[in-house]
C-alpha cells in the first residue's frame, strides 16, 4: 500500500477562503472592483460571505495580474478562478433540480443535445399543428399555440430562479431591499462598472496584463441587444393583444425597430465574446464550465442569427424551417435559464443589490 502524500484537496469554498484571507491582509487590489472593499468588512469569512463575494466578482482578472502571490509563489493566489469556482458552485447548489444545473453549466454537448430535442419537437409541431389560416409565420404556427408553449416555458424557469434567489438572499444574509439599493445595482450593471478595472480602461481578459475594454463592449452589445430583442417580442405582444395589430410587422414598426438592431448587436456581441474567450487563459476562470459557457454564447448567437434570417426570409419557403430552428433556440434558452450561464445576470444583480444594502466599507481609511 502506498501513502498518499498530496495535500488534502480543499473544497472550492475552502480554497476561496484561504485566498481571501491573504487578500484581506494585503488589500492592494481595493480599487479594482466591489469585491475587495466588501471583503474589508469581515475578519472571518462564513460560507455565505464567500458566496456573496464570488457573485460580486466579474472575473475581470485585474487582481490576478496585479498579485505578487500568484504561482509559482507558495501562496498560489488565483482569485478570479477561486471566486469563479465558488460562483458556479453556488448557482448549481441553489438551482433546483441541481442535477440539471450541473449538467448544463458544465457541458456544451448537453446544451446542443437539448437543442436537437427542441428542434425535433418544433418540426413535429409545425407539421402536426399547422393552422388553417394566418399570415407570416403565424401561417406555420398559430399565435395561440405559440403563446401556449412559450409563456409557461418562460415563466416556470423564472419562478425557479426566483426560488434560487430567495435561497441566495438567505445564504448571504441580505437585508431589507430598498429602491435605492436596486437603483444602485442597476446603475452598476448598466455600466458594467466592475469590468472597468477601477480606472476605466477595462479588464485583463484577452491580452494578459494589458487592459482592454473589449470584453465590456462585447458584453454590453450582447446584453443590450438581448434586451432590445426581448422588448421587440414584448412590443409585438402588446400590438397583438392591445391593438389587434398582428404580425408580420413592417420595417417601421416597434418590433422591427427594436428587433433588427437588437439582433445585430447580439450577433456582434457573440462573435466578440467567442473570440475573446478563445484568446483568454481558461485557468483564470472556472475551467470545468468552459464548455457550457461557450455553448451558451453560441446559443445566444444562434437565436440572433435565426431571428434575423427569419426577418430576411419573409414570404419565402424558408420561413417554416427557420421558424422551427429559431423557436427551438429560444425555447432552449428559456428552459435552461436556471441551469445555464443565463443565471449569472440574476445572481449578479442580487449580489449588487445585497452589497448596496450593506454599510459602506471602510475603504479610504478608518
Amino acid at each position, binding site marked *: 500500500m502506498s501513502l498518499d502524500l498530496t495535500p488534502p484537496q480543499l473544497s472550492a469554498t475552502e480554497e476561496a477562503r484561504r485566498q481571501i*484571507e*491573504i487578500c*484581506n*491582509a*494585503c*488589500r*492592494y*487590489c*481595493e*480599487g*479594482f472592483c466591489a469585491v475587495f*472593499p466588501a471583503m*474589508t468588512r469581515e*475578519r472571518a469569512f462564513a460560507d455565505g460571505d464567500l458566496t456573496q463575494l464570488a457573485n460580486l466578482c466579474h472575473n475581470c482578472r*485585474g*487582481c490576478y*495580474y*496585479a*498579485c*505578487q*502571490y*500568484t*504561482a*509559482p*509563489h*507558495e501562496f498560489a493566489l488565483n482569485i478570479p478562478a477561486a471566486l469563479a469556482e465558488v460562483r458556479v458552485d453556488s448557482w448549481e447548489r441553489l438551482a433546483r433540480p441541481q442535477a440539471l444545473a450541473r449538467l448544463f453549466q458544465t457541458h456544451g454537448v448537453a446544451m446542443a443535445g437539448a437543442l436537437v430535442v427542441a428542434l425535433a419537437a418544433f418540426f413535429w409541431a409545425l407539421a402536426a399543428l399547422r393552422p388553417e389560416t394566418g399570415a407570416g409565420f403565424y401561417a406555420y404556427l398559430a399565435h395561440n399555440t405559440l403563446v401556449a408553449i412559450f409563456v409557461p416555458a418562460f415563466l416556470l424557469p423564472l419562478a425557479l430562479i426566483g426560488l434560487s434567489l430567495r435561497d441566495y438572499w438567505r445564504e448571504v444574509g441580505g437585508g431589507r431591499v430598498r429602491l435605492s439599493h436596486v437603483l444602485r445595482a442597476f446603475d452598476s450593471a448598466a455600466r458594467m462598472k466592475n469590468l472597468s*478595472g*477601477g*480606472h476605466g*480602461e477595462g479588464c485583463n481578459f484577452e491580452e494578459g*496584463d*494589458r487592459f482592454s475594454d473589449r470584453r465590456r463592449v462585447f458584453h454590453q452589445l450582447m446584453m443590450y441587444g438581448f434586451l432590445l430583442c426581448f422588448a421587440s417580442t414584448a412590443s409585438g405582444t402588446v400590438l397583438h393583444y392591445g391593438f389587434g395589430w398582428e404580425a408580420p410587422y413592417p420595417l417601421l414598426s416597434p418590433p422591427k425597430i427594436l428587433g433588427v438592431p437588437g439582433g445585430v448587436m447580439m450577433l456582434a456581441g457573440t462573435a466578440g465574446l467567442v473570440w475573446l474567450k478563445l484568446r483568454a487563459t481558461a485557468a483564470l476562470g472556472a475551467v470545468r464550465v468552459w464548455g457550457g459557457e461557450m455553448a451558451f454564447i453560441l446559443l445566444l448567437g444562434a437565436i440572433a442569427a435565426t431571428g434575423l434570417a427569419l426577418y430576411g426570409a419573409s414570404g419565402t419557403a424558408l420561413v417554416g424551417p427557420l421558424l422551427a430552428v429559431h423557436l427551438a433556440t429560444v425555447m432552449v434558452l428559456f428552459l435552461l435559464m436556471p441551469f445555464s450561464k443565463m443565471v449569472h445576470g440574476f445572481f449578479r444583480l442580487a449580489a449588487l443589490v445585497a452589497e448596496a444594502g450593506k454599510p459602506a*466599507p*471602510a*475603504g*479610504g*481609511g*478608518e
Partner: protein
Amino acid sequence: MKDWPETFDLAVVGGGNAALCAAITAAEAGASVLVLEGAPAPYRGGNSRHTRNFRCMHRGPMFPLTGAYEEEEYLHDLMLVTKGKTDEGLARLAIRSSEECLPWMQAHGVRFQPSLSGTLSLSRTNAFFLGGGKALVNAYYNTAADLGVKIAYDAQVSHVHLDGDRIAWAEAEIAGHPVTVQARAFVLASGGFQADLDWLARAWGPAARNFLIRGTPYNRGVVLRDMLDQGADSVGDPTQCHAVAIDGRAPKYDGGIVTRLDCVPFSIVVNRNGDRFYDEGEDVWPKRYAIWGRLVAAQPDQVGYALIDAKSIDLFMPSVFPPVKADTIEGLAAQMNLDPQAVRRTVDGFNAACRPGPFHPTELDGLRTEGLEIAKTNWARPLDTPPFYGYQLRPGVTFTYLGLKVDARAQVHTAAGPIRNLWAAGEIMAGSILGQGYLAGFGMTIGTVFGRIAGKEAAAHVA
C-alpha cells in the same frame, strides 16, 4: 563565453522600478536599451513588486493625494527618521522631483487609487498604486516593450568590467548560459544585498540566518559587491539593515506585505523565556513598526511572542495566518512551546500592574502600567478575557543600507573620479539619502527619481 549579438546604447542591470524608469526614459530619448533582469519572468520586478505607494510632494490636492505636502515638511519628516544622516542636496532633489513623478508615472501606465482602508494617515503624503507594485511593474514592462526595449529574464549579471574610467562590458548568465553584454552605457539598479544570508551573517552576526527576507530572493548584492571590489565609492552602514517584526510563520523569502503584524500595541510581547523585553505601547504603531524587527532580533533565537486577549483581537489589521488560540494563558503558552508557568507569571505581574482608565485604541491614551520594570505606557489592559491569542514574531528584513555613492546626476564614482558611463538608481544607491531609518514610500520615490535621471544621463551620454 558568448557575446550578445547586438551592442546596445544602454544596458540596465535589474528589472525593478528604478531599472524600468531608467530604461523607459532612455528609450524615449532614442537610445537602444537592454534590460537584464536576474529573476525569471514570473518573479520580475524585485522588491518593487511588493510595494504599495510612493511618497510624493505636492502643493495642493492631486489625485489620489489629499491636501498639500511641501518640500520643507517632507524634508523634516526625512530628517526625523534618518536623524540627520542624509545628503541634504540629494534629499531635496528627490523630494522636489517627486512632484513631477506622479504625472510621469500615469503617462507611462501606472494607475493610482485612494489610500487603502486602514491607511488614512498616509492619504496626504503617499500615492497608492492601483493593484500595488506588481501592477506598476507590469505597466512599465508593457511601456518598455512598446518602446522597443529588449528584456532578458533570468539574466544574472555577475561582473561589470571597469576599465580606467569606463565600464567596458558586463558578464551575465542568461538562462544558464554565460554571455558578455556590450553597451556604451550602463545603469545599475539591482537593489540591495538582503537576500544573501551569508553576507547578512557576516555583517550582522550568525543570528541573521534566522531572519526572514520580506522581498525577492534575487537581490543578493552581486553587482554591488563587484563594484565595491573594483573601488567604487560606497555609502551607508554596511552592518545595518531595515527589519520589522513579522509573522514567524512567513516564508523565508518573498512573504511581502501580508506577513506584517499590527498587533503589538494591543499585546504583551515576551521572549523565548516568557519575559517581556520592551514597552509595547511606546507610540502609535506606524511610528514603532520599524523598531520591533531589531528588538526581536536581539532576543534569544531571534523570536518573540505577542499575546492578546479577546478584547483586543479585532483592533488591528487581520493577519495572513490565523493566530494560535487557547482558553487559558497556560494553554496558549504550551501551544507556542513556551514555559506555561513563566508566561503565567509574566501575565499575572502585568495584569496586576494595569490601572483602570479610558482606553482609546487609535490615539496615545496614557493607559499605563505602574510598578513594572518594563512599563507599557499606552493601551495597557490586563490579559483576562479568553480566548487568548498568540503570534510568533521574527525579524523580517526589508532592505540593506550599504550602497554606491552617487552624485546629483546619479553617476557612480571611484576615488579617481566619476565613472564616465555608469549610473546607479534605486536601492543600490539609496544609502546616499537614507543613512538610517525609513520613511514609508521613499524607496519608490528614490527609484523613480534617480531611475529617470540615470536614464536621461545615459541617453545623453550615448547621443
